[in-house]
Every structure is written in structure tokens, then in C-alpha cells.
């Protein structure tokens, strides 16, 4: 299906920053301290990334983060055990067996990760959510308000809701916050996940969210930042309603066991893997 994109293109370099920093530190170390220190410094950086990459796994239970962490830790091991000469001048040198094993594991993990990346299994789906919500919404000037909007009232059980929240998190469709009276779902776009995952006590009230209250009410809030991320001024009332209805539709699909249809709906958009 062909959708006319309503969101602006994402030109953020946030997701490439760790790689850029690592290379910069590596090159500076190489110039200042030589091959041995440079490789070990890079090893310390990948160790840090490996540890940090495990945090989102505990939050979302998405296997991709576990694999990323394992990949980075394997790379750390490689950088600590590989003889520096093998990297910078490998001609005529044999690869030690333990290094060879580590390289094979790294390659396998790398291929697995690439597969998950291109299947969009480790992609934050905020862009798809906002595109789908806007698909049938017309334009209207100056219609934004910072108020949340009640959408509907439906019946559900708390366990259904918690199960749905876990599903959305596992598939990186939204992050969920379970409160005393409601569960709040916040769609996260690629490269915007860092504060959600690492900042303690994040304030999500001013961000975009859909809240399912335990009494059945469903309320939507769209932040000004996300609203302005659309290319045009969309009718804000319709947009909020559409976003709420989208989550309700997803919830119904989840309840009847058709979770895969939710993923299909988002994959149909064919949004670029890195946005």
C-alpha cells in the first residue's frame, strides 16, 4: 500500500553518535599512545556500550538488545585478546585459535543483528505510529492545544492491559508506564529512545501518550514537538482521536490473538529502517 508520508524526514545523527565518538577516541589514542593502547581503549568503550545495551533489554524484553549487548561484549573480548599487529599488519600472520573463535561468534551475532535490523525487529516504531495516526487526517490551521483529549470508554481487564503493554514494549511500538489508575503508552521514534531508557524518573506527561485507565477511559495527548514534526498543520482534534482509535484497534487485535496484524500494518508503511 502506498502512503503519502506526513512526517518530516529524520536527519538526526543521534543514533550514530556512539560510533562517531568511538572512532574519534580510537584515532586520538592511536596517534597519541600507539596501537596497543588504542585497541584496549576501544575495548573499554565497547565494554561500556555492551553493559549499557543490556539496560533496554530489561525494560522491553526485546531480544535484539540482548544480542546487541552480546555482540559488543564479544567485540570487547576480541579487542582485548587480539594481538595489535594482527589488526594493523596481518600479512603472513596466523590468527590464534581463540581469536578465530571470537571472530566467528562476532560474525554470527552480527549477521543475526543485521537480519533483525532489516526485519525492523529492533526499530522503535514511533514514526510508524504517528504516520498511521495521521493517515486519514485533514489539514486545519491553528488547531493545536496542549490539553489531553478523552477518546472513548471501553471494557477490559487489567491483565489484558498489562499483557498488551508488554507486547507493545517487546516490539518497540511504545514504552509503557504502569501507574495506580492507568497504563500510559508513549510512542518512541528512533533516536529519541535514550532519555526514556536511561533517564531515571522521566517526565512523560508533556510528551505524546495514550493512557488506558483501569475504569475503561482512554485519553490521548500529543506534544507540540510531535505535532510540529508533521509537514502540515493537521486537524489536531482528528489527529488525537485517530491516535487513540489506532491504539484501541491494536488492543482489539491483541485481545483476539492477531498481534501479527499490528506488526504487518506498520511494516506495510515501509518506513526506512533507520528512521
Amino acid at each position, binding site marked *: 500500500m502506498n502512503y503519502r508520508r506526513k512526517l518530516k524526514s529524520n536527519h538526526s545523527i543521534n543514533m550514530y553518535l556512539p560510533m562517531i565518538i568511538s572512532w574519534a577516541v580510537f584515532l586520538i589514542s592511536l596517534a597519541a599512545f600507539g596501537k596497543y593502547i588504542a585497541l584496549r581503549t576501544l575495548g573499554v568503550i565497547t565494554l561500556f556500550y555492551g553493559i549499557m545495551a543490556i539496560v533496554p533489554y530489561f525494560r522491553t524484553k526485546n531480544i535484539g538488545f540482548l544480542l546487541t549487548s552480546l555482540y559488543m561484549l564479544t567485540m570487547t573480548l576480541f579487542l582485548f585478546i587480539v594481538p595489535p599487529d594482527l589488526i594493523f599488519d596481518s600479512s603472513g600472520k596466523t590468527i590464534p585459535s581463540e581469536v578465530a573463535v571470537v571472530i566467528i561468534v562476532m560474525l554470527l551475532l552480527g549477521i543475526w543483528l543485521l537480519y533483525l535490523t532489516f526485519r525492523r525487529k529492533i526499530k522503535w516504531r514511533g514514526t510508524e505510529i504517528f504516520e498511521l495516526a495521521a493517515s486519514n487526517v485533514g489539514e486545519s490551521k491553528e488547531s*493545536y492545544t496542549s490539553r489531553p483529549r478523552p477518546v472513548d470508554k471501553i471494557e477490559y481487564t487489567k491483565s489484558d492491559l498489562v499483557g498488551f503493554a508488554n507486547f507493545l514494549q517487546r516490539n518497540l511500538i511504545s514504552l509503557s508506564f504502569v501507574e495506580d489508575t492507568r497504563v500510559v503508552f508513549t510512542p518512541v521514534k528512533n533516536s529519541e529512545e535514550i532519555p526514556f531508557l536511561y533517564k531515571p524518573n522521566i517526565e512523560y506527561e508533556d510528551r505524546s501518550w495514550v493512557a488506558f485507565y483501569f475504569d475503561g477511559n482512554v485519553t490521548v495527548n500529543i506534544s507540540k514537538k510531535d505535532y510540529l514534526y508533521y509537514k502540515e498543520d493537521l486537524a*489536531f482534534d482528528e489527529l488525537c482521536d485517530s491516535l487513540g482509535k489506532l491504539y484501541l484497534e491494536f488492543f482489539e487485535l491483541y485481545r483476539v490473538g492477531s498481534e501479527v496484524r499490528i506488526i504487518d500494518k506498520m511494516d506495510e508503511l515501509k518506513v526506512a529502517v533507520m528512521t
Partner: protein
Amino acid sequence: MEFKKAAILGSYMSKDYAEPLFKLLVNYSSISASEAASRLNLHIRTVQDFLEAMTELNILKKEEVYEKKRPYNRYVLLKHLIKMEINLDKLQENDSDINNYSIKIRERNNSGAQFTTARNGQYFSNVAIWVGKGREGKERKISLTETQGRFLFNLPFPNSAFMDIIQIMKKAHIDTEHSSEISDIVNLLKEYGVVETEK
């Protein structure tokens, strides 16, 4: 009794000298302001204001008398029983078109109002409005009752379809007994340009 008259009566009755002054008025067949003032050691102006106010309220009667061709007033108590009865229902606003609950409203675009959500997240606890322009501007925060907060939570967004007050109240599950407090907040927000009505 009209509210304004009751307010005047209440204000004078609360004075320390009200009881001794009435005591004099009960015991004397008539008394002048200067006689009462000297008797109670009060300023004549204070006593005169009190007696004039009671005359306005028809509690006293004023008689003009002459002493050496100079006129002055003597006051006589008319009512020995004062009843203060105020019908608060008369305070219900009737002079606004908002009281026609079929009038259609929605939030005005760029109103600048900031709504704060209550703890349970399903109604607003207050609304902050920017009053005035530039450096003269200041924030006015209006605390809302739960009913008003629920009503505003369901108020149509800017540029969306207008809804009449009854429809919004139904959507927000608000009983008609709360309609006057709803019309009060709608009137206020209309005055501040937060709410607009369909033309």
C-alpha cells in the same frame, strides 16, 4: 432583603458600638447624633454614619428639629425586631447568553490557556490564563471544582466541531444540578478569550 442592604446592615452590626447604640435607641424615645456620641464617647461622625445607614434601611426614622433656628436630626427607632433574610437563589446568573445551555462552544485557538491535569488524570484541577500584554501581563490561575474540571476536559478542541453545553455535560457525565457552576466557568473563560461560541 436585598444582598447589598444585608451587606450594609451586617457591616454596621459587626461594629463594637452597634449594641450600645441600639441600647440607647431602645431606651430613648428619640436621640440626636451628638447626644449619642457624647453618651458613648464616640466621634460624632461615626455615630452619624451609623444612624444614617440605619435610616436608609428603614430601621430608624429621622425627624428634623430646630434649636435656635438651627436644624438638626433626631432619630427614632422604628423596628424593634430586625430580621435578615437573603434569598441566595436570586444570585443565580440570568443575564448571560451562556445560561441558554444550547449555545455551542469550543476552545478558542491560540488562547494561551494552560490546563493542569488532576492527579487521576481525568479532569483538570486548574487553568492558567495570561492576562494583559507584554511586561504588564500576568498569570491568573483559576482553581476548578472537579465538575468544572471534567467539563473542560471534554471541551472541544480549537477548530473542531462546536458542541452545546448540555452535550459536553452529558459526555463528561455531569448532572444538570451542576449547570450553574458550569455556566459560571464558561462565562469566565469566554471573558478571557479561552472559550468561543458559535456565531
